[in-house]
């Protein structure tokens, strides 16, 4: 004889009045994210529309916020790839790269977590109710476009090549080859940008994550293992690159504006 359920059919959750019973400081992480991302976006917006102090003539330093410089407003020496767009103030000098980089970061799996929690409150923290009546996630417009991350990754790879090119060109002085603190900052920024780009989840998948049989692709497996190690630090790299980008830009702006001079090691 089997036991038959006699429990009423009602399926009711426990009646708990409090929206959350968490007693730890769950609000701290979203708050830090809001301050960090908000501050960075404010700084970047100001700098992008400043249209000045982005090129150091003596040492060929070009800030990543203006690379590649493609508007008519660009200083000719800084426009390594030609100018294609009019010099209206509303158009950033790096009108090609900035939207793509913004898309890359917006659709990044780490940043999604960060801004969904901090800005969209969906949810603000684990086991804390989200602030929306209904929820459809990334199943429909506009959030279905988060799937464009793959496109943005390819673009970010190309732009990292451009940043690398800029960093190499910056080994320059009026006497020829030169090397200073600006170069250290530029190269450090490029290394971090590559690390962030390569540690991307899309990259991890493309490199080898899509495979079913690692044993048949030993080289891709090794590459996947390497990217997986970086991928673990994707969040840290995301924040580090925000810092290095801002630092690089600020340093070049300061040198360009004459606030202080570049510390030179060679020439």
């Amino acid at each position, binding site marked *: 004889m*089997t036991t038959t359920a006699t429990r009423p059919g009602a399926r009711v959750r426990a009646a708990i009045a409090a929206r959350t019973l968490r007693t730890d400081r769950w609000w701290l992480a979203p708050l830090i994210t809001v301050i960090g991302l908000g501050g960075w976006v404010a700084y970047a917006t100001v700098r992008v529309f400043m249209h000045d102090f982005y090129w150091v003539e003596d040492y060929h330093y070009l800030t990543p916020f203006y690379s590649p410089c493609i508007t008519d407003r660009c200083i000719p020496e800084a426009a390594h790839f030609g100018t294609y767009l009019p010099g209206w103030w509303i158009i950033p000098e790096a009108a090609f790269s900035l939207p793509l980089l913004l898309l890359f970061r917006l659709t990044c799996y780490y940043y999604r*977590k960060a801004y969904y929690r901090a800005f969209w409150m969906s949810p603000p923290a684990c*086991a804390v109710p989200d602030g929306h009546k209904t*929820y459809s996630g990334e199943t429909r417009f506009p959030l279905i476009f988060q799937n464009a991350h793959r496109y943005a990754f390819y673009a970010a790879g190309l732009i990292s090549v451009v940043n690398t090119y800029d960093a190499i060109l910056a080994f320059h002085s009026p006497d020829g080859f030169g090397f200073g603190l600006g170069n250290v900052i530029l190269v450090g920024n490029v290394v971090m940008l590559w690390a962030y780009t390569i540690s991307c989840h899309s990259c991890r998948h493309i490199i080898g994550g899509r495979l079913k049989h690692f044993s048949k692709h030993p080289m891709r497996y090794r590459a996947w293992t390497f990217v997986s190690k970086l991928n673990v630090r994707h969040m840290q790299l995301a924040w580090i690159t925000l810092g290095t980008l801002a630092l690089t830009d600020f340093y070049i702006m300061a040198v360009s504006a004459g606030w202080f001079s570049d510390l030179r090691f060679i020439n």
Partner: protein
Amino acid sequence: MGAKRRFKVWRGDEAGGDLKDYEVEVNEGEVVLDVIHRLQATQTPDLACRWNCKAGKCGSCSMEINGTPRLGCMTRMSTFAEDETVTVTPLRTFPVIRDLVTDVSFNYEKARQTPAFAPPKDLAPGDYRMQQVDVERSQEFRKCIECFLCQNTCHVVRDHEENKRAFAGPRYFIRAAELDMHPLDAQEDRKEYAQASMGMGYCNITKCCTEVCPEHIKITDNAIIPMKERVVDRRYDPLVWLGRKIFRRDQLDEGVPHRCRPSWVRTRKGPKWSSKASTGTARCRGRRARRSTGPAGCRSPRSRSTGRVARRRSATMSSSPCRRRASTTPTPSGTTTERGHSVDGGAPEDIRGAFSASGTEAGRRRSARPPAATGRRAAPRCRASAAPRAPVPVARRRRAAPR
């Protein structure tokens, strides 16, 4: 003699309830579950709580401690300040049965809907050979103890009950990923199934499932995101799309097995997202459901074929309470659930019934059948057979595909 500590424990059932205050002795080295047991022993013997192994391996004592989903047996009292009041409540996402015990059958329903492992047709059981490097990723997911903390904390269903129909949850995303990454799994439409029928698109990568997992499975990074990326491979990647056009390989309809092609699969033009998607075709639905549902509504080793606990349980199935309930043995006025979990506190008969093997819909249907039918393997209605068949031309398959 330990110190007295303050506790708030949610007491109640479907009709309502409230947080009750207790002062209880706590000794060095104890965990929250120990304190719950002391409460039962000394102050409130009717407090209902599900537990079993006390070692963080059975996944039974899932509860919310100070608002955070955790295992009672793995939450040390030393992590709280001595003057802190510890609040213990049942899992919020699932219907409450009584006190700290919830009805987690939502998860079993989703388990039944998840397509099972499909080995290659030309490979007999026992001939499976895999290299360790190929199964490593899947093995991480097999650590799952099915505590359902991830399912509970996922805001998609925790805060939006209406999404339960369309959303399978993180636990079943790792199941889908495990099988999709399995070197011998021949069913190649799992990613599309996960997207269309399991509601993977609802996940917005906020990683709460990973945060609460007691087995430290990287659910988001190693299962959900790779599955999302696999969907992107098929649907959105510009280079893959170009390669498919130029080299005519990896066509979207080639991987979908003919015999049980889900109703939402539309050849060439991509899936037709239909509400029927979650159960597959009508022809295959019955077989799949029968295959994955254990005796009398218990989860069978196949449907719950993950985790060390599952393997241990399947090895001792003959003596498991699940099997006992499914047989004709009268149920003792028992304290054991269909998962073999203990339920303390003298739950009334109707509550124990809810835990019993027939507590689920499938179980009720099953128990209505003659006893002989319970253990009988149903004849397959699909044209599935182990014998290899000649490949079916694409045009014919397209006609044959159920719409």
